[in-house]
């Protein structure tokens, strides 16, 4: 089949179906059983293991690896899932290289950590393939909790609440649950509709109802939820995106990276998804890398990530940066966009080099222009409009250690709440911990 790598503009079908399938196959394929045993055997079963401390959900990693090594991967999965109900997705998307695997003593010893993420996937895959849900609900409490957002924070919160016998209704703005697991994250990290399969599996606990296409501010109010439910958990993520504030930003093919990633994740046929021949991605985080790499995998000829600070300041991990470069993405650092070229019909982006002066980033007079027929903005997401009653901490909802907001009876967690990294695993931890606090509060109130 002909590949139209060099077609100008934004075009679909740059690479063949076969190439697309190969390009978007699993980044970290599942272990064969013996591979898993060999990988598990490398774990030293450390005392008070540093990997546990490094995991935002504090999974007992040495224990679950030992359970794999001794032929009980189902038990391993339960160890994982009791701390992190989305352990299957986290096994795929966690930046383990900056979390558990960075802390692994074998990383210190030989620069080759135990492959904790892949082992976690091995265990959780086996359990989920058997369609076993190892948790049950305690006796119904008669209490009800509203959860806003069916992303990682909301789902983790809902599941833990359901386990404790509360009835949960999740209000989800989109027509599908999963949040960024479903709409964000590069496709090669979550293949075979895993986010939906995991969601279905999670709901087997019972006691959780999801109402789709219901968003806060759009027919749904915080006060209304407070009236109707015993407690409210907000986990709606970041609905807005930052703008470049440049003239020409409204031009065709200048779009948000998150929208591109979501379109890509929802596309039935990736060969029908248009992508530019020359793509420029502005930003330095995971979203920038995901958008850039996937553009390349769709057949874009030139893909450049441009980041305004030095490469060491990029929030994308070293592993992600290496992945991008290995896939042929160019990373340009210390340059900030100053102009969209093309008079409304995008032809390129002009950047000015930046310098740090007295700790402040300053734009210099020296500029360059990158030709582009598609630009993705990946310069951060922001909280969409929130109920006024909620106190903010910076640009996010202020919460205490247990996830309590400034409004009594309202908790928040995940990307919309202040504190913690914007990671699936962090959202799960926050949702879970808020659920425990909600449970304690509701138990005390009865």
């Amino acid at each position, binding site marked *: 089949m002909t590949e139209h790598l060099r077609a100008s503009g934004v075009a679909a079908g740059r690479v063949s179906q076969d190439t697309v399938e190969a390009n978007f196959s699993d980044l970290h394929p599942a272990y064969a059983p*013996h591979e898993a*045993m*060999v990988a598990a055997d490398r774990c*030293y079963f*450390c*005392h008070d*293991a*540093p990997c546990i401390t490094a995991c935002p959900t504090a999974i007992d990693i040495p224990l679950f690896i030992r359970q794999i090594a001794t032929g009980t991967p189902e038990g391993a999965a339960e160890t994982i899932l009791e701390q992190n109900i989305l352990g299957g997705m986290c096994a795929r998307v966690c930046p383990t290289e900056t979390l558990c695997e960075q802390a692994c003593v*074998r990383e*210190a010893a030989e620069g080759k950590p135990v492959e904790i993420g892949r082992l976690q996937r091995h265990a959780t895959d086996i359990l989920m393939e058997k369609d076993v849900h190892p948790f049950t609900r305690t006796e119904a409490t008669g209490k009800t909790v509203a959860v806003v957002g069916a992303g990682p924070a909301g789902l983790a919160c809902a599941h833990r609440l359901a386990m404790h016998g509360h009835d949960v209704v999740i209000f989800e703005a989109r027509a599908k649950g999963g949040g960024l697991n479903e709409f964000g994250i590069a496709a090669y990290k979550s293949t075979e509709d895993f986010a939906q399969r995991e969601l279905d599996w999670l709901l087997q606990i019972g006691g959780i109802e999801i109402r789709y296409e219901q968003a806060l501010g759009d027919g749904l109010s915080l006060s209304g939820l407070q009236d109707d439910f015993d407690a409210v958990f907000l986990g709606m993520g970041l609905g807005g995106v930052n703008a470049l504030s440049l003239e020409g930003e409204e031009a065709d093919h200048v779009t948000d990276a998150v929208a591109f990633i979501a379109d890509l994740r929802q596309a039935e046929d990736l060969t029908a998804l248009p992508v530019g021949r020359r793509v420029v991605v502005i930003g330095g985080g995971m979203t920038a890398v995901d958008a850039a790499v996937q553009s390349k995998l769709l057949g874009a000829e030139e893909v450049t990530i441009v980041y305004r600070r030095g490469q060491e300041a990029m929030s994308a991990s070293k592993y992600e940066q290496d992945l991008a470069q290995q896939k042929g993405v160019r990373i340009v650092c210390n340059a900030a966009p100053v102009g969209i070229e093309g008079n409304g019909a995008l032809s390129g982006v002009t950047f000015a080099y930046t310098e740090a002066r007295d700790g402040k980033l300053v734009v210099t007079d020296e500029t360059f222009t990158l030709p582009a027929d598609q630009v993705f903005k990946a310069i951060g997401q922001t909280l969409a409009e929130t109920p006024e009653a909620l106190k903010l901490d910076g640009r996010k909802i202020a919460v205490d250690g247990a996830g309590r907001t400034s409004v009594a009876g309202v908790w928040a967690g995940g990307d919309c709440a202040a504190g913690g990294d914007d990671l699936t695993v962090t959202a799960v931890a926050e949702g879970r911990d808020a659920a425990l606090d909600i449970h304690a509060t509701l138990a005390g109130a009865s």
Partner: protein
Amino acid sequence: MADLTTTFCGITSPNPFWLASAPPTDKEYNVRRAFEAGWGGVVWKTLGEDGPPIVNVNGPRYGAVWGADRRLLGLNNIELITDRPLQVNLDEMTRVKKDYPDRALIASVMVPCEEAAWKEILPRIAETGCDGFELNFGCPHGMAERGMGSAVGQVPEYIEMVTRWCKETTDLPVIVKLTPNVTNILGPAQAAKDGGADAVSLINTINSITSVNLDTMSPEPMIDGKGTHGGYCGPAVKPIALNMVAEIARNPTTHGLPISGIGGVTTWRDAAEFIALGAGNVQVCTAAMTYGFKIVQEMVSGLSQWMDEQGHTRVEDVVGRAVPNVTDWQYLNLNYVTKARIDQDACIKCGRCYAACEDTSHQAISMSPDRVFEVMDDECVACNLCVNVCPVEDCITMETLTPGAVDERTGKTVEEEPANWTVHPNNPSATAAE
């Protein structure tokens, strides 16, 4: 390069590596391949009486214990002695010995505990041109139920009696192969010597069940739902074998009796250890069954290199060098005081030393909030457990306190003069220290 030529109880072979009597030496085809690969000698798979051939099971004969990455650590078997007709074996042995005159060819023999049986078969086997006999008093399975193998090896009087019959019958060297399935190896070894044996070889395999199939509730290896104890061998049994070899080598009345060391020899280093503890040569089986005959090439090159580095020119120069250092507990120097030392640069902070010491030993390692692990000399009894569980080689070592230093645990000054239990004040039968 060191000369590996070894003369063991009068039998010369180009190197000290013999293949033990076992499946690898059951027939001409294998033995020729072994000699081509470089083995110094072969103990032919045990020959039995003429008559209806031995019958083996038709299901699994071997069970195994694995380590990481399915590395074979231990093997057991329920195979019996050769199941091929005696004359076929004898004809093959004759041809092989004729073609490989420089290699040792030993006939392993097991016949019923009757004088006539032994006296009838040995001359017949000798016609093959073999260099000696090994009396199989070791096999713990199957044949033992019929009064042979370890059933003889567990009764010193039988060992002595049969050995004497054999020595009366042949001028060839007679090696007695001992079973480890006894409470004290010295009894059988002494009996062999008293019967006139030219050497002993040990250990034969250890009674064992390798595992239990938890689905079928049957021991492995399993034959139609049932299992029986088999003979355990391979790397896992080496420590047991080393001790038994050393016991014979250091015991005054058996000292000097040539020993062919057997039991988990897998590398040149294993062989050197057996030789250092008194073995005149070694026999190998499991390593060959795991990796094939080619391993002998590593054994030959490794032993040569080590001997060159140590300045040993002949294998005999090494034999028994470690034996004087094997002693009884009561003679160990109680004034030898060591303390564990953790190399902080090498430490990877896994905390296994801490867990081991804290949970199961003497609470002598401290752990700081930032995972620095340090030995507390006032608690350390120098048990060595931390050294053993540390995954980093040479990260934890034992430092010897010099005389005059104070052992912080006991508050006592380390004495220069050795002193052992025999002179210790707590010992009721202590003799006064000089």
